[in-house]
């Protein structure tokens, strides 16, 4: 506490909660400037989340029940899982980043968004691009390039509308006030530059003017892994760095750990993607470089983990009451876990077992869902009341959302990783017939479908609460004080 008290004196008053009226008025003005655009993106994100969840459930069931919907070409496994991936990656994740992170960026820059209407138009084009992409995938125009399934004809629309959206964050940064730049702003600024770079290089070298042979695969995994590492991860970490001090009302534990965490992530994550082709037909030096970078990722992960943990420690009770902190802490803990598991998976001896199995699928969901998506949920729980000036209608629905999503994703990760581990061990033993291995994965795949049902329940609880709040009924309008998750102390806090 002493350390944070001295930090307190050194750091600017933003971003944590202020009682000063002029500052609150300024924030309110900024919120107003980006309100329509943020709501547009967030509503789009929630709709894509629901659609993506339905695709996911179909794909999961088909995995252990191949006759399910087998007659419909559009619903064949290869297409429906690609529709799922792109709906949740480009539809949910990107939209929620635009909605939440641009808002946080504007607040931290103390710079109202000018011409918010243009931002909405760019957003409409982005969502048209995603819709066209998903439609194309289901129709059979998918590229079969992992993480880049969207048909070639939809890619220019996505690239251009992305740049038109991303530039708003950079403009806000350009017109920022105050000379201190907060850690969230570093992550956002970096992500906003990195994503278009990796995306344009990838579509260029794989789809528009294909490079020769396995250079494509190298580009593919440089992009595929960096989409997580240089786009979703910095955006979620930036959001967490903003939300934790805001809700708990005290600064991040250490500025220096933030600096170390940021730069080590920027340096190492970049190179890590090649671990997806360990053992593949590419030069060994390239794979080794990827493994070194993957192991070095331990540095930013541990540093950020310590920093987040020490920012929350001692305030667990307050955190548990706040929907935002509950989701964000769940995400932050899983960031540490998934990253350490990821570093281990890049070691050749471990990769030999986990590669080509459901273990990797579990790992991907661990990262994108248990870490990224849970933090974004936390962010939405924080943002919406400030945007709409009304509270979340139902604490019970938030509880259902948290527990169904949280338990659901844990079941999924455990099922796929335990099942995947056995699958990998068996595949490396040529004595075991392949079909026997397939049969042995079935119970784990069924457990994944069960987890999918839980997550679906969570998402619908979230969506009901979300749209209920958006189109508020009278009772919600009149409600005062924040919606907290522990009813007894919730009444005290309402005062």
């Amino acid at each position, binding site marked *: 506490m002493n350390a944070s008290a001295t930090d307190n004196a050194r750091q600017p008053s933003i971003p944590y909660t202020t009682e000063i009226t002029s500052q609150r008025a300024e924030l309110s003005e900024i919120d107003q400037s980006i309100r329509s655009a943020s709501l547009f993106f967030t509503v789009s994100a929630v709709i894509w989340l629901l659609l993506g969840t339905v695709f996911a459930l179909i794909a999961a069931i088909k995995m252990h029940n191949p006759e399910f919907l087998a007659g419909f070409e559009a619903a064949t496994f290869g297409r429906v899982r690609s529709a799922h991936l792109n709906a949740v990656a480009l539809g949910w994740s990107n939209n929620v980043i635009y909605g939440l992170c641009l808002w946080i960026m504007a607040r931290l820059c103390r710079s109202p968004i000018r011409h918010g209407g243009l931002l909405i138009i760019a957003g409409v084009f982005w969502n048209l691009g995603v819709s066209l992409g998903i439609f194309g995938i289901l129709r059979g125009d998918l590229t079969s390039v992992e993480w880049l399934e969207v048909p070639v004809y939809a890619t220019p629309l996505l690239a251009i509308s992305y740049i038109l959206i991303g530039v708003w964050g950079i403009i806000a940064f350009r017109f920022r006030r105050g000379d201190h730049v907060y850690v969230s702003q570093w992550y956002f600024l970096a992500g906003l530059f990195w994503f278009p770079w990796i995306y344009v290089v990838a579509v260029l070298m794989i789809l528009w003017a294909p490079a020769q042979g396995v250079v494509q695969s190298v580009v593919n995994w440089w992009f595929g892994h960096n989409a997580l590492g240089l786009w979703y991860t910095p955006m979620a970490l930036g959001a967490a760095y903003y939300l934790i001090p805001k809700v708990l009302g005290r600064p991040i534990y250490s500025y220096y750990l933030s600096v170390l965490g940021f730069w080590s992530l920027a340096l190492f994550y970049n190179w890590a993607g090649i671990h997806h082709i360990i053992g593949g037909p590419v030069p060994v030096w390239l794979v080794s470089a990827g493994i070194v970078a993957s192991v070095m990722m331990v540095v930013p992960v541990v540093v950020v983990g310590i920093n987040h943990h020490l920012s929350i420690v001692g305030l667990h009770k307050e955190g548990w009451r706040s929907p935002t902190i509950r989701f964000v802490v769940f995400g932050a803990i899983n960031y540490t876990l998934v990253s350490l598991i990821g570093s281990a998976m890049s070691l050749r001896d471990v990769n030999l077992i986990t590669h080509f199995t459901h273990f990797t699928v579990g790992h991907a969901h661990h990262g994108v869902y248990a870490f990224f998506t849970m933090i974004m949920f936390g962010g939405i729980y924080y943002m919406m009341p400030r945007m709409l000036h009304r509270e979340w209608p139902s604490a019970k629905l938030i509880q259902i959302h948290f527990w169904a999503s949280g338990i659901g994703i844990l079941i999924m990760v455990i099922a796929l990783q335990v099942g995947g581990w056995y699958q990998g061990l068996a595949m490396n033993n040529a004595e075991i017939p392949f079909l026997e291995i*397939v049969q042995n994965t079935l119970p784990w795949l069924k457990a994944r479908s069960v987890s999918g049902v839980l997550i679906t329940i969570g998402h619908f609880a979230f969506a009901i609460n979300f749209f209920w709040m958006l189109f508020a009924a009278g009772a919600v309008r009149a409600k005062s004080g924040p919606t907290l998750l522990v009813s007894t102390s919730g009444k005290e806090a309402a005062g």
Partner: protein
Amino acid sequence: MKNIALLFCGILFTIAFSYTGVILASQLQFGSLLQTTAELDEDGKQMEGDPLFPRRESGIALQGKQVYIELGCIYCHSQQIRREGFGADIDRGWGLRATVARDYIMQDRVLLGTMRTGPDLAHVGGRFAGDGGREWHHQHLYNPQLTSKGSIMPPYPFLYEVREIEGEPSPEAVKIPADSPYSPKTGYEVIPTRRAVALVEYLLSLKVDYSLPEAPILDQ
């Protein structure tokens, strides 16, 4: 942080660093390989008159590859064989040797894949060859249970047409045992569509049965 120039340069440097090290270096090292003969002479030159590898893909196989891409087969089937001693790819009979970068240079889209819900297909044309292989693939695609009981591969009924037999049964028809639960009604037969024919030709064409100077097939 107050030094914005440093922040900005760092953001650009880190991405430029990995772009140079991973992408440009790959492009320079193995981005313009050429076909070559199975062995080289003493001077490291190609053997005059020997065939060049890897082979160019045939027209119908390329059409079939398009079907493979459209259906997303890559999400359960890889096309890469790892070296002896690293995994059991070769012990399982999935290939005769490890694949190397040069094996993929004739492909406009490389489908290495990262998942083996089903077996690797880099050398599937060597495992199921000729008319027997063709028949196996059609049965397997129409309904995997016909050839591989307990498989979780989806059936692809939309690649086949079930039609009434008019006069003589068609020689193209997929051979399905009459007592199988997946056989069509009596008087009906299962005919592959053009897409099924192309897809099977593509699968038959997937063969790494040639040596390269850097990756010879060693006699067992």
